[in-house]
């Protein structure tokens, strides 16, 4: 249920005119004022724009990509952060001899 609220926050952030700007100015306040129930951990992930943490939490990768601008980043940056975290290259293949924070197969 909470994951759904996280995704709803991102969905509405992307759609609501002005909310993205407000988020970039004061992310913790915008997250705190959200009408849905978010855990403290989820609030931190959103306010810190921790896309890897959000992805691991279960947020859909496409939603992260389309919301990137509203979060103050770019789809390319989101892509690079996810690839780095999972040790995958531009072809989606494992990068040899690179420490991987979490093996993708474990998730």
């Amino acid at each position, binding site marked *: 249920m909470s994951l759904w609220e996280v995704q*709803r926050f991102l969905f509405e952030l992307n759609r609501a005119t002005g909310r993205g700007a407000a988020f970039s100015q004061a992310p913790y306040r915008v997250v705190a004022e959200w009408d849905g129930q978010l855990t403290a951990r989820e609030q931190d992930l959103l306010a810190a724009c921790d896309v890897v943490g959000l992805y691991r939490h279960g947020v859909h990768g496409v*939603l992260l*990509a389309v*919301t990137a601008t509203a979060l103050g980043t770019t789809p390319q940056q989101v892509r690079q952060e996810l690839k780095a975290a*999972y040790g995958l290259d531009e*072809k989606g293949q494992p990068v040899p001899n690179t420490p991987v924070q979490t093996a993708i197969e474990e998730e």
Partner: protein
Amino acid sequence: MIVAAIAASHAPFIVGAPEKADPKQAQRFFAGYREAARRLGDAKPDAILIVTAEHFTNFLTVVPPFHIHLGESAFGPVEESLGIEQRHVPNAPHLARELLDAALASGVDMAFGHHLDLDHGSMVPLHLLGVAPHTPVIPLIVNCLIDPMPSYLRCAAVGRALRESLTSMDARIGLVAAGGLSHWPGMPQAGRISPAWDRRVLDRLADGRDVLLDPPEDPDMGPGAEELRAWTIVAEAASVTQAEVLAYEPIIDWSTGCAVVDLMPHGSAMLP
């Protein structure tokens, strides 16, 4: 009547970052799109029915398996990064309503709405197929993104439900199925594609639409392959018996197995 049916990939990089691709691959792929545009233009459609996925542009709190737009127009693309001029794409609400009524009469409880924004899923193919700004476009969204998704058999039923209405219309309708083939959108695996799976689908499609009722599985095809549902709907609507692959390129730098297919290479004489 149905006058053309095209299926094509809609990855945002195709227009947003064309320079990223190998130039020879891009050249061959765009040549396929140009040929499809020529054929679609020669068919002189009065309106386009585009069947496509959407990407959290409209739906999250409610996710319809199938949704047809009844509004006067739809705005797109929402992504400025595509470099496609943002505009209000005119709809053909009366034709859309006919299709909705036909679906309902056939037992397909399709959702409908009066406000819709269009993302790359629609706008990339409309742009590359040269659909004129004044040509009405009826968007039919199929959920290919969020689990659970409609079965391929149900998608086929939607196509069949639309077929009689489309073929009996006085208006000349061009069908466009947008999406696919193998790709991993938004995921760390982005860039992984499966040319073997793509070619298996395309080879079988050349002999008819059965492959779209139960597509083969492949560990590398990725969740983007779910967009084949759009192809299933259009292929069933057009009673496709053979198809002509106009282009296929596994373009890693666009993160997608990219295809352009003419689903009705011999025109409307094939129908029904």
